Each structure stands twice: as C-alpha cells, then as structure tokens.
C-alpha cells in the first residue's frame, strides 16, 4: 500500500514538473502585465534544444542550460512585439506557438537525418536512485532532480514577488503601470525581463520533459503541455504556489489514470485519460470560480496615457 502511494506521488511529481516550470513562466510574465499564450512554443523549443545539446555534448546539465537560453531567446520575440511595439499579446503569443515548434522540428530534421525526433539523449540524474534504495519502498519515489528544482523555483518566485522590492515593482507594473512609472520604475524594462524569465522557465519546462521523462525529443513531446500550464496559471490565480498546486492536481489526476489503468478497474483507458481534464473543470466549478487577472494584464503601456 505504502509503495503504491509513493508510486502515485512519484508519478504525480514527475508529470507536474514540466507544467510547473511552464506555469511559473506564465505567472511571472502575466504578473508584469504581459499575457503569454506562447508558453507552448517556448517549451517545445526548450524540449528540442535540451535533447539535442544533451545528445551532442553528453551533458544533460548543459542541455538544461541551453534549453533555458533558447526559451529566453524566443521569448524576446514576444517581448519585442508586446512591449516595444505594443502589439496584440494574444496574437504574438500564438505566433510564438507556431514559430517555436516550426523551428524545433526544422532543426531536428536538419540535425537528425530528416527524422522528426532526436536520438535518445543522456538524462538528468534521479534522486533515490535504484542503487541505494533498491529494497526500500522509497525507490518508488524515484523522482528527477527537476522535481526539486521546480519546487525551489516556485519558492524563490514567491519570495521574489511578495518579499522583495523588485517583486513589488513587478506587481505594480502589472496592476497599474502608470503609477509604477510615476514612481520611477522602468515599465518596459521590467516587462522585458519578466517575459525573458518566463521564456527561460518555459525552456526549462520543455527540458524537464526531454531530459527526465522521455529522454528524447518527439513531435508530441510537448503537445498541449504549454496550454495546460497556461490553464494552471489562471487556475492558480496568477500566484506561484497557486500555479504549483494546480500543476500538482493535474499531475495527480494523470498519475491516478496510470495507477488505476493497471487493470484493477474496468474503465476504458480513454475514459480514464479524460479524468484530469474533467477533474480540473469540476474543481474550478466547486472551489475556485471567478479568477481575476492582474489589472493591466494584456494591456500595452503607453507613456502619458492614464
């Protein structure tokens, strides 16, 4: 029983990790007032970069860093459009979702002999690895380092947003950019940074898929995770721990489908697969309800306009 619970916990953490990174990326960007629908595209770029770099260099850590850099780089497109050019942020985000996977698959075909998936890459280490804990039930809690990283990043982001001056700046820019501007906060710079960080985190999210869960990049590696992360941002009411919790719930529902799908129940696997999504809607109806975004979310800031 204990081992089953630990297994459930392990899978929950495993599946929620890429989502957590993606969702935290969404939180930081939207907190500064820039809607980021492009998480999906940024995650895909990160997933490919991580797998490719890890494969060619043999270092998954380098892969992780490269994924962050790639995600950050592509997020700059979004930043330029939505901050400098005050373009429609939804449209620009959707463009990122088209460009990101396009670039990832394009380069994948170039580098891997016209295949749409990379060769298996070296993955990141796991905690409680099989060697030391072979006999203890703890081996079922065989989590990846990315799981711990994700938790750490959420904690850091919470501390940053609510306990530091810079966090206050970010939040004020997202709520009332004009007021922030009056106080001498550089609105555009804050937004640029936040969008960039959101891209880096989304890149990590993609990497934690290909460097921990599936060990190679495939066209369906990310498919939809970025959108679910986006849902988690709203679900978690634009807070780091809220988003983290939403991702956990999602990972848990997914773990449940796997553990229940073991054959003990006569429910068809496709119906079980719907569970996470139905559960999310039910939880929303019962507990969460109306969600209020940061006031200036999605609105370009024009100096001098009140």
């Amino acid at each position, binding site marked *: 029983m204990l081992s089953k619970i630990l297994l459930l916990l392990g899978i929950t953490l495993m599946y929620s990790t890429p989502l957590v990174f993606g969702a935290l990326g969404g939180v930081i960007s939207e907190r500064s007032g820039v809607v980021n629908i492009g998480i999906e595209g940024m995650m895909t770029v990160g997933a490919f970069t991580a797998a490719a770099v890890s494969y060619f260099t043999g270092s998954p850590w380098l892969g992780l860093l490269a994924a962050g850099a790639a995600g950050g780089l592509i997020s700059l497109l979004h930043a330029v*459009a939505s901050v400098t050019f005050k*373009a429609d942020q939804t449209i620009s985000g959707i463009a990122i979702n*088209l460009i990101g*996977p*396009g670039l990832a698959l394009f380069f994948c075909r170039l580098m891997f002999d016209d295949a749409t998936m990379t060769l298996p890459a070296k993955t990141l280490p796991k905690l409680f690895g099989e060697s030391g804990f072979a006999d203890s039930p703890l081996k079922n809690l065989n989590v990846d380092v990315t799981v711990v990283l994700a938790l750490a990043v959420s904690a850091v982001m919470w501390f940053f947003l609510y306990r530091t001056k810079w966090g206050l700046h970010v939040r004020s820019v997202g709520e009332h950019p004009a007021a922030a501007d009056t106080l001498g906060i550089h609105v555009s710079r804050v937004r640029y940074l936040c969008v960039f960080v959101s891209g880096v985190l989304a890149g990590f999210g993609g990497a934690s898929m290909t460097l921990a869960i599936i060990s190679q990049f495939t066209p369906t590696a990310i498919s*939809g995770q970025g959108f679910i992360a986006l849902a988690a941002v709203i679900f978690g009411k634009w807070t780091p721990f809220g988003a983290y919790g939403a991702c956990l719930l999602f990972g848990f529902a997914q773990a449940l489908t796997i553990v229940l799908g073991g054959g003990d129940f006569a429910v*068809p696997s*496709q119906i079980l697969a719907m569970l996470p999504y139905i559960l999310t809607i039910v939880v929303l109806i019962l507990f969460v309800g109306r969600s209020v975004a940061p006031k200036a979310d999605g609105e370009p800031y024009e100096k001098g306009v009140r």
Partner: protein
Amino acid sequence: MKTTVKILKKPITSTFIAILFGFLVAAVVLVFAGYNPWESFGALFRGIFAKPKYISNVIIKATPIILTGLSVAFAFKTGLFNIGAEGQYIAGTIAAVCVGVKFDFAPVIQIPLVVLSGVLAGAVFGGIIGCLKARFGIHEVITSIMLNWIGLYLSNFIVNTAVYHQPNSTSSFAVNESSFTMLLPNWKTSKAGMAALKPHQWLYEMMLKTDVNFGILVAVIMALVIWVLLYRSTKGYELRAVGFNRDAAEFAGINVGRNITQAMLIAGALAGLAGALAITGTSPHKISQMAAFENNGFNGLSVALIAGSSPVGCIFAGLLFGGLLYGGQSVQQDVGAPTEIINIMIGTIVFFVALTKIVPSLADRLEKRGAHRVK
C-alpha cells in the same frame, strides 16, 4: 503623400506586409539552412497552382479551417477567446461519424441529419464553455483547453468501441455513402460522367482526382451569414457591445451572461460544422485514433488573426493557409527542405500581423508631419 497614407491605413495593407515578411523570414531561414529560397518558393507555388488537382486540394484543405477560423473570429468579436475550436471540431467529427454510421436514410435526409448532428455537438462543446463562463466566471481559456483534450480522448474512445471500431485498423467505420457531400460522387465515376468530363481536361482532373465537395460553398455562405449576423442584426449589435465593453453593455441593459453563452454556442456550432463537413466531404470519411491534435481548430486561430477577425477575410486567409499547408509538402519533395519551414512562415506572418497593427497609427503620424510641413 495622401494616397500613401490612405493605403497604409487600410487593414489589408498590414496583412500584405505581414505576408511579405513571412516569405522574407522563411527565405532567411532557408538560406541559413543551406537551401535555395527561390527554388523552395517555386516548389511551393508549383505545389499550389501547377495542376488543377492541386488547386482543388487546396480548397478542400482550406474548407475546415475557414470555418474554424470563422468560429474563432466570431468569438473574438464578442470578446471571447475561443481556443477550443479544436475540441469543438473534434466533437463535430465524432457526432457525424456516430450518426453517419448508424443511420442510412436517403441523402436528402441523411446529409442534413449528419451535418446537423456535428453542428449540435460542436455547439454543446462551445456552449459548455460559454455557460461556465457566464454562470461561474470560469475563464474560457481553461475550459476550452480542457474540452479540447476531453474531445480528443472521447474521439479515441468512440473509435475503439465495439460498435464503431473497424476491425484490424486504428479507425472507426466510414460513414454510410448516403452522407457523402462530394460533388456528384457517383456520376463522375460512371461511364456517362467520364465521357462528359473527358473533353474538359481541367475539370476532369479536378473532379476525378480529388474529393471536390460542397463544403467550400457552405463555408462561404456561413462567412456571409456571420457577417450579416454581426453587423446587420440587433443580436449582432448586442454581441459586439458585450465584446467591446462588457460593463457598458451591462449598463445598457444587455444580458451579458446570456450573450456570452449564445456567442460560444454559435462559435462551437461553426467549428462543429467544420468537423461534420470534413467527415462527409473528404475521404476517409471516418475518425482515427489520435496521438496529438490535428490542428484544424488551432489553425483556425491563425486564420482568424490573419483575417483580422473579419468573417469574409477568413475565406481568403483560410485559402492562403490551405495553400501554404498543401503546397508546403512539395517543398520537401522537390527541394528537400523540411516542410516545417511552412510553420515558421505562417508563424512569422501571424507575428507580423500583430506588429503591423501599428502601421495605421504610424500613418497617422506621417500625415500629421506632412500637414506640418505644408504649413
């Protein structure tokens, strides 16, 4: 000067600039990857226009995304972001298959029955989103995303049920022939039909080698219907008022909640129609096990954006999109460059659609400066 400003202010100019940039960026990426952009674009255009068959296939490819584009555009106009067109499209295909396999009436009854069942299923999917938003204030983006996945797994479930699963395959049975909406499907393969078509090489190729169907007509008609609904009816005024300023609409006595639900019902119905028409109009006339989304709904997002949410614009944006998607395959076949260049191109176009929204305001500034100089 004045004419330049005037041209710059037209929304269509921005769109063309965006398309131009799409090609430009794609060319740069191609050069970077070591391919000749001229050859690649040549292959692309040959893949669209070289044969009547290709043109026909482009139109077939464009039909569903024109409709999902309309769905997204309509929702946009009412202030809603329908990221759920994918799920509504899938719902449409599921319902069409269920009804089309089960029943076998005469085409006059069967076709409307199958198509309407798809419309209804899409409307239900959209309606849930709208209802949850209106009643509980749940963000439409979350419910949309969740329903997309529910649709995907529901489709996989139906494919695998004993009633609909075609043995030794990964797909369902095809719908009964009475539900097909191809243009004269039986006549064109009959002796008389062949004989009549033979002298007209163009028609012959277009009709016989592709699934020419009525879908495009329906799509064009729906674009006009949506335009009339939005801009020439009281309901449309209400819907747009809610989209423009929710609080003001409420103050003016418009029932915001009901309008949100209705808007999503209609948006869902359009995407469901796209799904149903895809089933009745094109082979293989059935649904298959899916590992990932087929993007008919998500492509609608791009179509709506390129069209600037104009219903009639969706027709052209959809055709452009269908052309790029279909012709893009030739780039890989002829030049060897990865087809994904098309996705990069489409993404760039959408990106510049967002950027070129600023062109009109730039034109304004240009105009002012011009006036200043005259003084």
